[in-house]
């Protein structure tokens, strides 16, 4: 009984039912009684987004005016009427030197987003050109046993997004490889559980910054003498160590709380330890393990920004920090763009995990 995979089923499975509703609207499949549902599921969320943008716009405007008024008044008090008029003209022209530095409006953020994409296209073209130019030379260098020449220009915003994704997946993988096996051992043995408990309780609440410093101390010494860029290594290990606790605790809990009936069946059938773990214990604790992994991934994504910032790893974290230090005309708007990108990617990562969780979980009802 194989069921066909339709858009509706896939989106519903991922918790994105809104898309199939919109599709139904355009294909005319929507029944009258579905209309109420459609209102609730599509119109209301859209309206709330518009309301949010409207409020943001007005708030940004108010903040802008407040800062502009303050600048004009300051010029008036310090340098007299002439300077105040000059300041007024300057602010109206939108010049960088006197532009109020405050919350950007939605329109500015959108412009910055487009400018970041343009910037990416320029850099990508530049990179491609560089690759073409050095292709022959690099081949020769490799043949001679020398290192190939690599592009060392500034990374674009999109490059930084991919750098961040790479770091978060490496960190997530590290967390998975440490936390799941360790969690299984801890869950299976009460002795290990009591001996590891203090360890978990103490290290779980440690801040990402401190993990970063710890990893920095160790990795710096380990990589002494090598001129490799260690920022990626340091940041992904820190991300992994920060985020693995949820998986560790959930795996241990899942493994130690396997239904007693299943354990009895395993005992009666005299399953060996290997079979018991892989055929009974692990499958039955998969839902909890995945809950842990979902938390781990979202924590990893959250701490990533702070860690990249500290480690000077050229991802979104560093992007935000550099824009903040930069203070250019559209720096604030770019920071907000990064904020949305971070938010949307975090949401998508969560959905992907939820989809995998639904797929592997035997109990279809307990997925949230």
């Amino acid at each position, binding site marked *: 009984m194989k069921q066909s995979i339709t858009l509706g089923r896939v989106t519903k499975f991922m918790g994105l039912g809104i898309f199939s509703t919109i599709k139904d609207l355009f294909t005319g499949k929507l029944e009258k009684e579905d209309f109420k549902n459609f209102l609730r599921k599509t119109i209301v969320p859209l309206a709330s987004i518009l309301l949010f943008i409207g409020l943001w716009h007005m708030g940004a405007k108010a903040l802008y005016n407040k800062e502009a008024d303050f600048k004009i008044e300051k010029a008036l008090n310090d340098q007299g009427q002439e300077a105040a008029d000059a300041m007024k003209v300057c602010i109206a022209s939108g010049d960088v030197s006197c532009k109020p530095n405050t919350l950007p409006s939605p329109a500015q953020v959108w412009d910055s987003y487009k400018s970041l994409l343009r910037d990416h296209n320029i850099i990508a073209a530049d990179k491609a050109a560089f690759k073409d130019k050095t292709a022959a030379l690099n081949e020769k260098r490799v043949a001679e046993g020398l290192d190939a020449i690599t592009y060392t220009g500034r990374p674009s915003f999109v490059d930084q997004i991919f750098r961040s994704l790479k770091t978060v997946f490496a960190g997530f993988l590290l967390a998975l490889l440490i936390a799941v096996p360790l969690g299984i051992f801890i869950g299976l043995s009460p002795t290990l559980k009591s001996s590891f408990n203090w360890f978990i309780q103490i290290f779980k609440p440690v801040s990402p910054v401190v993990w970063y410093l710890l990893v920095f101390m160790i990795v710096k010494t380990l990589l002494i003498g090598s001129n490799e860029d260690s920022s990626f290594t340091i940041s992904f290990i820190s991300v992994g160590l920060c985020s693995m606790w949820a998986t560790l605790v959930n795996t241990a809990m899942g493994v130690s709380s396997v239904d007693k009936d*299943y354990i009895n*069946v395993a005992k*009666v059938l005299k399953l060996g330890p290997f079979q018991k773990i892989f055929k009974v214990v692990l499958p039955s604790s998969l839902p909890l393990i995945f809950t842990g992994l979902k938390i781990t991934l979202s924590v990893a994504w959250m701490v990533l920004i702070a860690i990249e910032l500290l480690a000077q790893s050229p991802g979104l974290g560093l992007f935000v920090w550099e824009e903040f230090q930069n203070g250019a005309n559209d720096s604030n708007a770019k920071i907000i763009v990064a904020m949305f990108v971070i938010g949307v990617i975090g949401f998508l990562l969560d959905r992907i995990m939820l989809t995998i969780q639904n797929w592997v979980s035997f109990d279809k009802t307990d997925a949230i």
Partner: protein
Amino acid sequence: MSTIVDTNNTKVIADNGLFPSNEVMLDLKNLKKVYPTPKGDYVVLEDLNLQIKKEEFVTIIGHSGCGKTTMLSMIAGLNPISGGHISVLGKQIKGPGPDRGVIFQAPSLMPWMTALQNVLLGVNQVFPHGTKSQRNDIAKYYLQKVGLEDAFNKRASDLSQGMQQRVGIARAFAIKPKVLLLDEPFGMLDSLTRGELQDILIEIWNKEKITAVMITHDVDEAIFLADRVVMMTSGPKAKIGDILDINFERPRTRKAVLEHNDYYKYRKHLIDFLEH
């Protein structure tokens, strides 16, 4: 101990060769179970003696909490013995093992596996030297026997409670245990499904003749399935109060049993015991 002896009946059954053989399969000697509590020891079972012969079907009936399940899980090896001995074919048991198959009250299937995989879990364990297709055939044979030929590849979590318990029955018979232990296997089912499953159980048992010990709350079920009904006294310090021989010939049908003259006599005997 009161036994109803119907000489004519016994003779006929014995002549047919259907009467259980005299070899002792399961032997409980001076069995004792004590749970330590802060207020002192709580004795669940004491001086419990029971011999079950090969190819015999015994049902155990008694009030809730009298220690029936404790006794069964001790035979299964899932619950340690505080005193006395349990032996299967003269050999004392050491922990749980596939020579004593168990059908639990809850179906206890692995919900992430299909019906076939659940049965194979046991079959693979007991016949490790068979080829894959041989083991598959065994599992499929027993699933067919319980009427699940269309549900081999259905996930256990997608099956109804009654169908899950059918898989439980198939899994227990497929490992060909020496003793089959049934802990109120139909207790959670509605009465229609219960009747169906009793028929399936007795049909498959008639073929396999595996020595069976079954706990039940249901007087009619106890009579319909058993060669002997063991009545346990209420705890604490529960022991065997009475044993009733059921001399209906096998294979039995529900209709024949209900219409048999002795049926109400047996029923009255059991109810009298339980109401005292």
